[in-house]
């Protein structure tokens, strides 16, 4: 097998565009997932039985459906519900964010319940409202404690962004497919794509590990 990297060199801008979409798709779905997850985790822990049940149904639904099915449904079926078509990118962000949100919800909930009740009492005794206590005292500790699982979820979110290629978001894998089809050089192109994913995900995981090691003592009440 001869190796010819010229298609990569000639089409570097095409691949770079894909990388740009992978990063922006990942970041936006992580932001959406984190927002859902923080709200969901707090709602399940402190929101009373009704909110707990509602959020619980969302979590169970999402965790029982393949992310690919959620993505396809969001892009092809959801527009019929709202009467408005979505761009592939918007559909991708929504689907991946909603999917990730369920897992972050459960992680945040585990973190919140692990902070001992005395911390809440101490915050309330100072005169804080429950909202103030959760925001300034309990949630920061919960997030610090849960950094390792949250880090895994973030890395998984970056990898899952590749699934958006099926709805033609021009992200890294999709661009690679297009390029491989045009140049008949699948080995060089797909290998490079794998390498690029690794170069994003591995340092991210190590960085989060490192942040955790520095912060861990601050989450231990």
């Amino acid at each position, binding site marked *: 097998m001869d190796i010819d990297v010229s298609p990569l060199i000639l089409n570097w801008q095409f691949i770079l565009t894909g990388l740009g979409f992978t990063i922006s798709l990942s970041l936006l779905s992580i932001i959406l997932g984190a927002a859902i997850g923080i709200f969901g985790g707090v709602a399940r822990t402190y929101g009373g039985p009704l909110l707990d049940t509602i959020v619980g149904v969302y979590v169970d639904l999402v965790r029982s459906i393949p992310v690919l099915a959620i993505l396809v449904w969001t892009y092809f079926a959801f527009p019929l519900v709202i009467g408005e078509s979505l761009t592939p990118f918007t559909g991708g962000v929504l689907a991946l964010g909603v999917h990730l949100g369920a897992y972050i919800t459960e992680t945040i909930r585990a973190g919140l319940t692990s902070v001992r009740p005395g911390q809440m009492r*101490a*915050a*309330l005794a*100072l005169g804080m409202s429950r909202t103030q206590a959760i925001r*300034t005292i309990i949630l920061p500790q919960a997030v610090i404690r849960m950094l390792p699982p949250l880090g895994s979820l973030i890395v998984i979110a970056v990898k899952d962004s590749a699934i958006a290629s099926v709805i033609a978001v021009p992200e890294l894998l999709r661009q690679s497919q297009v390029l491989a089809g045009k140049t008949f050089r699948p080995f060089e192109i797909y290998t490079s794509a794998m390498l690029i994913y690794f170069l994003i995900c591995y340092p991210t995981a190590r960085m989060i590990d490192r942040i955790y090691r520095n912060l861990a003592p601050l989450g*231990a009440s």
Partner: protein
Amino acid sequence: MSIRTETPTRPRIGSDAAPILSFDNVCKRYGSLDALAGVTFQVNRGEVVCLIGPSGSGKSTLLRCANALESIDSGRVLMDGRDVHDRRTDARNLRRRMGMVFQNFELFPHLTVLRNVAVGPTTVLRMPAAGAAARAMELLRKVGLGDKAAQYPAALSGGQQQRVAIARALAMQPDVMLFDEPTSALDPETIGEVLSVMKRLADEGMTMVVVTHEMDFAKRVGNWIVVFDHGKVVEQGPPRQVFEEPTIQRTRDFLSHLGWHGESLAASDLLVPAPSGSYEHRTSD
């Protein structure tokens, strides 16, 4: 050496004015357990009221009912004439007037020592950060920990953490301080530093309710002793009466179980320096 002849207990003060905190027949049940079965006593402004009694007798529960961290089933808790457990009462407003110190310190581990003390004023009183930091620094110096301001709580000893916790409560400028077994989780060698901070606070006229097993502290610093057993107040009175002439057998049993015999006072001088000239064996001071 006779203790009975010269007892340095403080007189009950301000009893003619309305009490700042009063408990009126307070009852609380956990399932079939009567945690509090009709507790009645008062705390006057400027007094140090010590709650003593066996573990599980309801002292800590009562403290939590005082600032509405726990609900009550019947009875009333009045803070400055206002019903703490009334639905119309703003519990947060009352809580910030009652500083609370916990057995396990409950410092916030993700905040520096300075931020631990300043976080109340900044979040609850909406005080500007600089002003809150200045107040926090002043209080940290007062409890002898000005040099620890930038540290995180985990780097401090138990006694130091508890002194930070006292500073944190004082930062809200409370009218009453509630202490829930503040020295029970401490190494013996750090108990003294916490008790002496508390004593200084009492000397400055702070109103204090102290749940404690430190009988020396209760006797020397307390104006009024309330003895709990099985969720009830079995005896209350000035320290002299409770410690030396307990009228109730249960109090006698509890005190002797703790090894309290009048003569043991001498050893306790290590913990809290007695007011000079208060004790016959200290008159050489």
